[in-house]
Each structure stands twice: as structure tokens, then as C-alpha cells.
């Protein structure tokens, strides 16, 4: 059996007096798209930040590729956070090359990747334009480029299609597909359940810091006797006191 790319065991997180995550455990394997779902404030972003070492967990283990993540493994990970932005005063190419270097690529490698990526997403002519002069959708494409530069083993996308038009949404999802086929694990955070149905192999629904549903898309639907993930989600959030399925 292959080792999972992400392994989280009995993870608890408290910030101040507030318990954000309560005993969360799950694994993600190479080549799978894993949907991490939940309402705002359910603990999704805190879990990701803890996985990436930005937050220190109160207890439990969070491993990427068999060990606790540190920025030294930056090349392993690509992260597109929900609160995302780039250096608005830098040019597109400078920004991408900077992040590429931070992830451990040589300047030449980062430059080569960036030029090819910008060409693919139709931004080749914007390479030397300052980020602040790009439209929201163009900036989002650059942000995705920053996340995937270096070919990460784990790609974490927090609402990646938010604000994108259908053409660019398809382009982004195609890129995610390619990475997945290349063996990368993808953590996909979204509120759009049709994207989950289309992309995800497995999912986890968080409510109040606890896992309320966990498994393959088909298994979760079966467990909740629902035809869609959206119905599962709604039923979990309509429960007054839920049962922990995680």
C-alpha cells in the first residue's frame, strides 16, 4: 500500500479560548482530488494553515509526505489560499520567479516555467506588466501559476474558481486535472458542490471543527441516502446535534 501524501491524525487546534478543530483525522493519497468542505468558520482554513506549519496544532500530527511540513519542503507544496494576492508593485514575471525561487527552484528554472505558463494561460504579453494593472481574473491565473510552479506533490486550492468566468474556470480545472493525472494530490476547498461532484474522488465535510462526513463521493452519498453532495451538506448543517462520522 502506498504511503499517503497527507496524513492527519487526531488533530486539535485551539486559538485563545476557542476550540477551532476537534480531533480531526484523514489521509489523502497521491493522484486524488480531496474536497475539504464546510461552512465559513468550520475550521477548513485553520486545518490547512496548521498542515502548512503556519499555525501550531494544539495536539495531533499533521504530515505531508511522511513528515511535519517546514518551508524547506516548499517545492512539495503549492498553495492557493482564499485570502490571496501578490506583490502589486512587482511585475508578473518578477513575482512568479520570486515565488519559484522561494520554493527552491533555480532562477532559470523559475523563469522558464513562468514564461511557459504565462504563454499557456494567455498572459505572455503581460509578463512585464505590474500585477496591480491586471484584471481580477488575470491576477487569479498568475496566483495559480505561483501555486503550481515547481510541480508540487500536493496542491491546495482554496476556492480557486471564485470570480472566474466560465472560460477561465475551465482552463483552471484543466490544469488541475493535468496535475492530478501527473500524480499530484489536490486538496480542493469550495462552496460549489457541482465542482465537488465533477472533480473529487473523496471528501470530508467539517462542521464546528469536527468531521461530519468522510469518504468517497459515492460512499458519502450512500451513507446519507442522498443523490447529491449538496443535499448531504445541507442535511449536515441542518442537524441540531450531529453525529461524528469522521
Amino acid at each position, binding site marked *: 500500500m502506498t504511503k499517503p501524501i497527507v496524513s492527519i491524525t487526531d488533530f486539535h487546534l485551539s486559538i485563545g479560548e476557542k476550540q477551532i478543530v476537534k480531533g480531526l483525522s484523514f489521509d489523502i493519497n497521491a493522484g486524488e482530488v480531496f474536497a475539504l468542505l464546510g461552512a465559513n468558520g468550520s475550521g477548513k482554513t485553520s486545518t490547512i*494553515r496548521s498542515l*502548512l506549519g503556519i499555525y501550531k496544532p494544539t495536539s495531533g500530527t499533521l504530515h505531508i509526505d511522511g513528515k511535519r511540513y517546514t518551508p524547506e519542503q516548499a517545492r512539495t507544496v503549492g498553495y492557493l*489560499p482564499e485570502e*490571496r494576492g*501578490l*506583490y*502589486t508593485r*512587482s511585475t508578473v514575471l518578477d513575482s512568479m520567479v520570486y515565488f519559484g*525561487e*522561494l520554493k527552491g527552484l533555480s532562477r532559470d528554472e523559475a523563469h522558464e516555467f513562468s514564461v511557459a505558463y504565462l504563454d499557456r494561460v494567455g498572459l505572455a504579453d503581460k509578463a512585464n506588466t505590474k500585477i496591480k494593472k491586471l484584471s481580477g481574473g488575470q491576477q487569479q491565473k498568475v496566483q495559480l501559476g505561483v501555486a503550481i510552479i515547481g510541480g508540487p506533490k500536493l496542491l491546495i486550492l482554496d476556492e480557486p474558481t471564485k470570480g472566474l468566468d466560465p472560460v477561465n474556470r475551465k482552463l483552471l480545472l484543466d490544469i488541475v486535472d493535468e496535475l492530478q493525472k501527473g500524480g499530484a494530490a489536490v486538496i480542493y476547498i469550495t462552496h460549489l458542490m457541482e465542482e465537488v461532484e465533477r472533480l473529487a474522488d473523496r471528501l470530508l465535510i467539517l462542521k464546528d471543527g469536527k468531521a461530519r462526513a468522510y469518504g468517497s463521493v459515492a460512499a458519502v452519498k450512500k451513507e446519507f441516502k442522498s443523490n447529491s453532495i449538496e443535499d448531504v451538506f445541507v442535511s449536515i448543517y441542518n442537524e441540531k446535534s450531529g453525529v461524528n462520522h469522521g
Partner: protein
Amino acid sequence: MDKLRIVIKHEYMTIIKQPSFWIVMLAMPLIIGLVYGLSYLGNKSSEDRIKELAKDIKNVAIIDKSGLVNKAVVQSNGLKISSADQTAELREQVQSGKTEALIVYPDTLQKDRKYSVYLASDDLTKMGAVTGLADGILKTSLFLPLGSAEIIALAQNGAESQVITYKNGQESAGLNEYVVPGLFVVLFYIIFAFSVGYMLTSVSEEKENRSMEMVLTYINPRNLIIGKLLAVILVTLTQVFFFALMAIAAYFVMQSLGNSISLPAGIDLQKLVFNPVTIAFSAAYLIVGFLMFAGFMTATAAITPSTKEANSFSAVFYIGAFIPFYFVMMILTDPENPVTRFITFFPLTSPVVALLRNTVGNMSLLEASLALITMTVFMVISIWVAIRAFSRGSLEYSSRISLGSLFGK
């Protein structure tokens, strides 16, 4: 180490590629040059005009009731003294414009030290010329009994003092001793004015443009902060190098124009003193003080949610750095004063106060070392707080982080 280099390069290039960086740097010497040039030309032109006018002023009446004005002095100016009985009549002539001016030295001049000048117009230049003439006549008359023109000039203008000082029984360099360490005070303010703020904007802009979370995924906060600090130091060195080049260029331009540069207070570039201990302390105060303020600025930017709020908070640090100027005489002359002692060790004032006291050498080696140790402790604390605030507050986009969350587990 490699990531540190990448951050330093990125931060440095981001700052120096900004047009505003070069505009501010070029504007400062240009504005100084422009103000200096305009004021020189303006003053010269005014002086010349007053002198020209003074030559032409012949239609001026003088009445001396004090008995202090010398007739010969008045005559040497092409004028004459009128009788005191004519005061009212001459005043009417001035009023009607027949006479340009009337100068009346009253009999109470000695007691009240006041005299009157009546002018036919309110032209400021003419006013300057006539009052200058009246003052000159009075002073020359009073000094005339002294004898020679040289003695009169000496009495009127004084003489330049050449101070010779002794230290430990040997002739010392006097003010020349203070020049080199004094330059560190100037350097501190240049760095403070130009560079410390970069830390504030660098961090708060990253928060505002939401790039922080992506950055923190790939580099730890300590490396990021240290990289930013080192980049700001490099930016500062660039500025200092640029200003030094401008100063050298200005020196050669002045020389080529035939102007000798006279330095104030008898300072002689040939006699400057380079005391290694004093310079070492000044350099240490400068670097540690800069890092301490940079740490405070970073922490402020990390704690507050926006650049605007960060700027408001940072005013405290700017005030702290400028407070010593209100106490400058006390700092330089009264080292035993408890207030001087307090502000030598108080973190926000200590860099400037220690630099000033080190310049005039009114600190013992023990006190100088204690000041440096205290400052270093505060520098470490400020950087520690900055890194902690950065780790905890950099992802708080809409609210300030509380002290509890900053210092809690």
C-alpha cells in the same frame, strides 16, 4: 541562507525600482541646492539694492537732540545736521514728499535707546537703507573717540575666537573631536527618516495585498523578517552612498567655482579626530538603534490591519526619536541630571541620546557600555515581538491582534 538571500534581493529590488524612491532621493539635494541658491541670490540682490539706494539718499534731514552724533560723520555721508527747532517743519516736508527722510536722535536716546525715522514712502528697501544709514551714523559717532578705523571696526564687529583646549595636559582638537561622532547623529536621522518606514510599509502592504499567506507557506517568519531588515539596511547604505557622492560632487563644484568652503565654529577638516572607541560606540548605537526601531515598526505593521492604522501607531516611535532635541542642551551639558540618565536608557530615546552624549564624550565607559547593553536588550525584544506579531498577526486581515494573543501560548 539561500531563501534569506532571495528575500533580501526581492525586497531590495522592489524598493529601489520604485520611482518614488529616486524622486525622494534626488529631490532632497535638489531642494537644498535650490533653496540655498535662491536665498543666496535673493539676499545678494536685496543687499545690492539697499547699498545702491543708500548711495542715492542725499535728501535726508538729521536732527540731533542727544548731542551724541558727530558732525563730521554726518558730513562724510554727504548730509548735514539741522536745528532742533526745525523738527515740525521737516516732518511736514517728509509728509508732503519734499524731503525723503528725517532722522531724529532725541535727548532721551542714552536712556531709552530709541530714535525716530520719518520716511516719505513705505518702500521696504528704502526703509532698510535709511535705518541702516541712521544706525551707521550713530554707531560710528559713538565709536569715533576710540581712534583708528581698525579699532572702530573691531569694536563694531567683534573678533573671531580661536579656542584652544587641553585634555589630560595635552592640547586637544576641541570641536574637531566632535565632528566624526556627530556625523553618526546626522546619519541616524537620515536612516530614520528614509529607511525605518520601509519596514512598516513592506509588512503592512503585504498584509493589505493578501500575499502574506502564500509567502509564509514557503519561508518561515523569522527568515522573512530578517531578510526584510537586511534589505532595508542595504537600501540605507545605497542612500548614504548616494548622498556621500552628492556631497563630494558639491564640494568639487564649489571649489571649481572658486568658492572656498568655510566650516562653522573653527572646524578644520585637517584636524578631525578619529577616535576608534568613540566611533565603535557610535556605530553600535546607530546599528542597534536602527534595528530596534525597525523591529518596533514591523511589530506595529503586523499587529494592525491596514497601512493607515499602522502609520497612525508608528507616530509614537517618530516622536520618541525626536524628543531628545527638546533636551539637547541638558543632554550635552548636564550628564548627571536624572532626566538625562533616564532618557539615556529609555528605549525610544536611547539611540539619539547615547549618540549625542558619545559625541561630546560625557559618558563614562561603564555608562556607555550599559547604554549599549540596554539598547541591545530592547533591540532583541523588539525583533522578537516583531517576529511573534508577524507570525500571529500577519494573517489577521480585518482586526488588530490583542496583547493576549500576542504574548499568550
